C-alpha cells in the first residue's frame, strides 16, 4: 500500500523535474533537474526489481552525465538566450 503511493509520488516528481528541465532558461538548473530525473529513475528501477540497472543508472546517469554537462556549460555559456532572438524577429530589417 505505502509502496504503491511511494511509486506514484516518485513518478510525479520525475515528470515535474522533466518539465522543469525543458522549460528553465538557465541551463545550469536544467542540468541539475536532469540529474534529479536519473536519481528518481534509480529508485523506481530498484522498486521494479532491477538492481543491476539501478546501480548503472546511479553511477552513470547521476554522476558522470551531470558532470560532463556541467563542464560543457562552463566551457560555453550558461543561459539559453531566447531574448536576443525575439528582438531580432521584431526588427523590420529581418
Amino acid at each position, binding site marked *: 500500500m505505502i509502496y*504503491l503511493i511511494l511509486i506514484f509520488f516518485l513518478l510525479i516528481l520525475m515528470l515535474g523535474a522533466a518539465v522543469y528541465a*525543458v522549460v528553465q532558461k538557465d*541551463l545550469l538548473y536544467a542540468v541539475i533537474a536532469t540529474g534529479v*530525473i536519473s536519481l528518481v529513475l534509480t529508485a523506481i*528501477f530498484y522498486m*521494479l526489481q*532491477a538492481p543491476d540497472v539501478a546501480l548503472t543508472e546511479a553511477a552513470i546517469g547521476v554522476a558522470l552525465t551531470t558532470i560532463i*554537462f556541467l563542464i560543457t556549460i562552463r566551457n*560555453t555559456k550558461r543561459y539559453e538566450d531566447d531574448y536576443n*532572438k525575439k528582438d531580432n524577429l521584431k526588427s523590420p530589417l529581418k
Partner: protein
Amino acid sequence: MDDKLFEILEFGVYGASILLILIGLYAVLTKRSLIKIVIGMSIIDGGIHLLLITIGYLKGGTAPIFSPGYEEAAGQMVDPVPQALVLTAIVIGFGVTAVALSLIIRLYRHHHTLEIDEIKRLKW
C-alpha cells in the same frame, strides 16, 4: 483495495514513461539551444529505459538473482532479458551524450554561439 491501486499503477507507470518520451521529443523539436537538445535526448533515453523495465516486470516477483536453497524459484522472477538490454543501453547512451557534447564545445569555439539558427556555415 490493493488490486484497485495496482491497476491504477499500471496506467501510471506506462503513462509516465510515455510522457517522459514525449517531453524529451518536445524539447528536441522546439528548442533552439544545442545543450537543451542534448538534455531532451537524455530525457528520451530515461523514458525508454523505464518503458522496457516496466514491460519485464512481474507482479510479486523478485530480482533475477538466485540464492542457495531457492534454486527452483525461477517462476517468480522478473524477466531478466530487458534488464540486460537496458544495462547496455545506458552505457551506450552515455557515449552518445559525450560525443554530442564534445561536438557542441567544438562548434562553440568556432561560431561563438549555441543557437542552431545562427550556425549557418557548417564547415570548419
